[in-house]
């Protein structure tokens, strides 16, 4: 259930980022903008009490337990296992982001292009898959992919393969299962961006003599950039923290950071080390988020205002 609750903060952040002020403005306008800030207080108070304070407690454990100091961090960096786990985590998150973008982009496009009623149906199907229990979907992949599973036995009875393909309990399984789960998080922001693009712009491009390929890469793709960025970042960050799917579809060799943290918390009660690992994950996520804001032309910290 932890997993199901996860998308919300990330989604909120991404949404907030894309709605950030369009340009740095002068002080009068700024004051007007901040007048509404008091309405934020209840939400801030809630987040402060139930999110920031526990988070701070968690981070403190990393430097206080079992003895005060940076021992936990030393242990993390000294262990070759940990750097491999960290590498696995990033490799999986990158692959999942790549594949869900490759699959989600055409889907979002198809939804945008299909006549109104049908497009909504397609979108509903995407949403429906998102609302189905994560466990049920993960186990379904297991049924399909395992060596005695649907795909392998079909291929074998057709005589296409002799030995079952190893599609699960390894990296392949994790990437397939997670990419599928992440597709809605690409499709939703991307479809919103695409449907806001004025088709006349594309038409203008082709009138000016751009080939279809050229107008795709020079006109359409750049216009989709905000959607690709917010979707991609959301998927990447969510993938960093995913636990259930890698645990069921992956092999132990591909251990990711969340599983390492759970092992330390639940089996070994080594909360100091777990906090240190969690703190690193948070730090990396924050850095990525900052980079993302930098790259978003409309955001207040952007390095340039050019598109």
């Amino acid at each position, binding site marked *: 259930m932890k997993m199901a609750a996860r998308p919300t903060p990330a989604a909120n952040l991404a949404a907030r980022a894309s709605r950030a002020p369009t340009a740095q403005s002068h002080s009068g306008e700024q004051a007007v903008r901040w007048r509404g800030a008091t309405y934020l207080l209840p939400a801030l108070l809630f987040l402060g009490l139930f999110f920031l304070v526990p988070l701070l407690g968690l981070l403190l454990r990393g430097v206080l337990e079992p003895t005060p100091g940076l021992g936990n961090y030393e242990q993390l960096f000294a*262990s*070759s*296992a*940990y750097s*491999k*786990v960290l590498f*696995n985590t990033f490799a999986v998150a990158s692959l999942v982001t790549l594949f869900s973008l490759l699959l989600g982009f055409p889907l979002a496009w198809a939804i945008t292009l299909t006549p109104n009623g049908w497009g909504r149906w397609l979108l509903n199907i995407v949403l429906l898959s998102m609302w189905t229990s994560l466990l049920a979907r993960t186990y379904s992949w297991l049924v399909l992919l*395992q*060596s*005695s599973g649907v795909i392998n036995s079909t291929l074998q009875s057709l005589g296409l393969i002799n030995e079952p393909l190893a599609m699960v*309990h390894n990296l392949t399984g994790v990437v397939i299962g997670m990419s599928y789960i992440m597709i809605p998080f690409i499709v939703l922001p991307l479809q919103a961006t695409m449907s806001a693009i004025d088709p006349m712009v594309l038409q203008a491009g082709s009138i000016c003599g751009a080939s279809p390929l050229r107008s795709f890469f020079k006109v359409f793709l750049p216009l989709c950039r905000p959607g690709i960025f917010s979707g991609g970042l959301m998927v990447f960050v969510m993938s960093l923290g995913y636990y259930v799917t890698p*645990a069921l579809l992956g*092999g*132990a*060799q*591909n*251990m990711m950071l969340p599983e*390492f943290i759970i*092992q330390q*918390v*639940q*089996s*070994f*009660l*080594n*909360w100091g080390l777990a906090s240190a690992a969690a703190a690193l994950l948070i730090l990396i996520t924050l850095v990525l988020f900052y980079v993302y804001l930098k790259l978003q032309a409309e955001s207040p910290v952007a390095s340039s205002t050019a598109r």
Partner: protein
Amino acid sequence: MMVLKKSALTLIAAGLLGMGVANAAEQSMSFVSWGGTTQDAQKEAWADPFTDATGIKVLQDGPTDYGKLKAMVESGNVQWDVVDVEADFALRAASEGLLEPLDFNVIARDKIDPRFVSDHGVGSFYFSFVLGYNQKRSGDKAPQDWSALFDTTTFPGKRALYKWPSPGVIELALLADGVTPDKLYPLDLDRAFTKLDTIKKDIIWWGSGAQSQQFLASGEAAIGQFWNGRVHALMQEGASVGVSWKQNLVMADFLVIPKGAKNKEAAMKFLAQASSAAGQAEFANLTAYAPVNVDSVSLLEPDLASSLPTAHAADQITLDYAYWAKNGAEIATRWNEWLVK
């Protein structure tokens, strides 16, 4: 005025008293285990008779979560009274001061197999890691002992092993490599990992009992290390699986009381009931896990008795959970390094 006040006070006092009485009648405690058929059997064999005998209600909760247990004890708000934990955790938690010492005036220690009792915990049940195999995959050859796991030419296919760095996998690798049971500890990790390297690409890891059954019954794994109760259940259902009890590795679950538990006295009485000859035999009959009470063996159902670890004591090797309680964290570091290498 004075009179009024007094009568009001009396009323309040009477109310409080009434509540006190109601509380005594409604006394309850919580029992936490791993869910599924195991906890159902624990309820039927221990909790229900306990409530009948004492009037104390037993609230079922779970699953066991060591992190939660530690958090409860640390915060001083302990919601759990009796918890079913793995043996090595029971010893480790005791050394970290997370558990109440048991009252052996209430619990009959002398009736319990000394392997399965400590100052802070009493055995819940014990079980064996056994060599299980899928008969469709192994043909007419029957694997004998753990060395079959490493013999990929005679027994090809995936090997299912228990995922977590806990007693079992290291030991079976050493046994397969020719270490004699009396020389197992201290564990020679280098030797164990070298042996495991030879089948590393053929291992699929299971994290839960249900998953292990799915691997074995479907033939996803040809052979592997399993909990005896799970293989027994598959055989009962008619799956074509076989089992070898040679070198069966004994592990146990313990029942413990977290430090600061609110219903400590009731919890002690519950432990007495659960570890009694009748309670242990009843649970064993329901699950095919073995009783920790030495008097229970004669109470077992005759046709079941042969599929219990108690019937295979001669081939048995007891895993040293005290060793694991002390060295578990270090072994886990090495284990993780080997795993992701």
